[in-house]
């Protein structure tokens, strides 16, 4: 899907959402979630192309796929958290959005723990 189609869809949903928000705010939030999910799914194919490109690049350079997988997971977590947090903010739940972001940050740190442990172990062995 081209960018102008996505912008068009977003503008239409925004206008409908603004009108709906005055009449039925709960439907406006649902419409916003639906539009967000549709745009994300439409871009999914392109995201896969980027991920494949990165994997090929790492593969050609003999770089460990373990690091790449972890960094890609971090990017995925941050996108999902951003998506959820923005929806919460749009619905007026700022506190909930902050909690989603906190959960994402903790999730990312948990992902990095194995690498931190491995490097610390190596450093301890190197400098006893």
């Amino acid at each position, binding site marked *: 899907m081209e960018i102008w189609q996505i912008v068009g869809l977003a503008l239409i949903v925004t206008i409908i959402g603004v009108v709906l928000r005055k009449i039925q705010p709960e439907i406006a939030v649902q419409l916003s979630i639906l539009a967000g999910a549709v745009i994300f799914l439409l871009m999914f194919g392109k995201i896969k192309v*980027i991920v*494949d490109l*990165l*994997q*090929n*690049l*790492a*593969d*050609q*350079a*003999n*770089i*460990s*796929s*373990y*690091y*790449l*997988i*972890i*960094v890609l997971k*971090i*990017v995925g977590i*941050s*996108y999902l958290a*951003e998506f959820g947090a923005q929806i919460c903010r749009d619905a007026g739940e700022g506190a909930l959005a902050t909690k989603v*972001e906190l959960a*994402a*940050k903790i999730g*990312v*740190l*948990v*992902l*990095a*723990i*194995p*690498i*931190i*442990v*491995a*490097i610390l*172990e*190596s*450093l301890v*062995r*190197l400098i006893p």
Partner: protein
Amino acid sequence: MQALQTLIHNLAIILLLATFMEMLLPNKSMRGYVQLVMGLFVISAVLNPLTAFLKHPLELEIPAWTSAAPQDMPVLAADGARLGKDAVEEQYRRILAHQIRALALGVGGVGEAQVEISFAETSAGLTDQPRIVGVEILLSPAQGTVEPVRPVLIGGEAQNPKSENPVALDVKEKVAKLMEIPEETIVVHF
């Protein structure tokens, strides 16, 4: 000279990847986390040749790169693609097994741990993450610790004694949480 060339080549690619990953991030608040992981990646990449240069070679548990390229393997054999995939899977298996072993040894009362990991048979690409279908951890008690006597149940329901042990349960829970592996796929023997 060859080692220096490889180091510079791989560092350039790692830094290129780091920049690209930062561009992909949705907000600035997550930038630091990607920078942390990529920084560790660079440390790992530099540490190995540096220790070799200092005549004190150090085998990293999570190597930044492998010496044999999976894409080189098809030249060696007719079914090279499968061999390449197996090599990547084996490397990933070793890294995971070491991480799980380190986590298990961090639990009090565990002296030694052996980890066996099995992956699902998939038709994924060379660098795709294999799906874990089973993790088997064999724990040995630390020297000097006395295993507490299990309560004797008379007439009660027969239970699996291996799953009763609190240390085994602790290891299972820790591994499931930190490695993001479903708890039902982990089997711990103590």
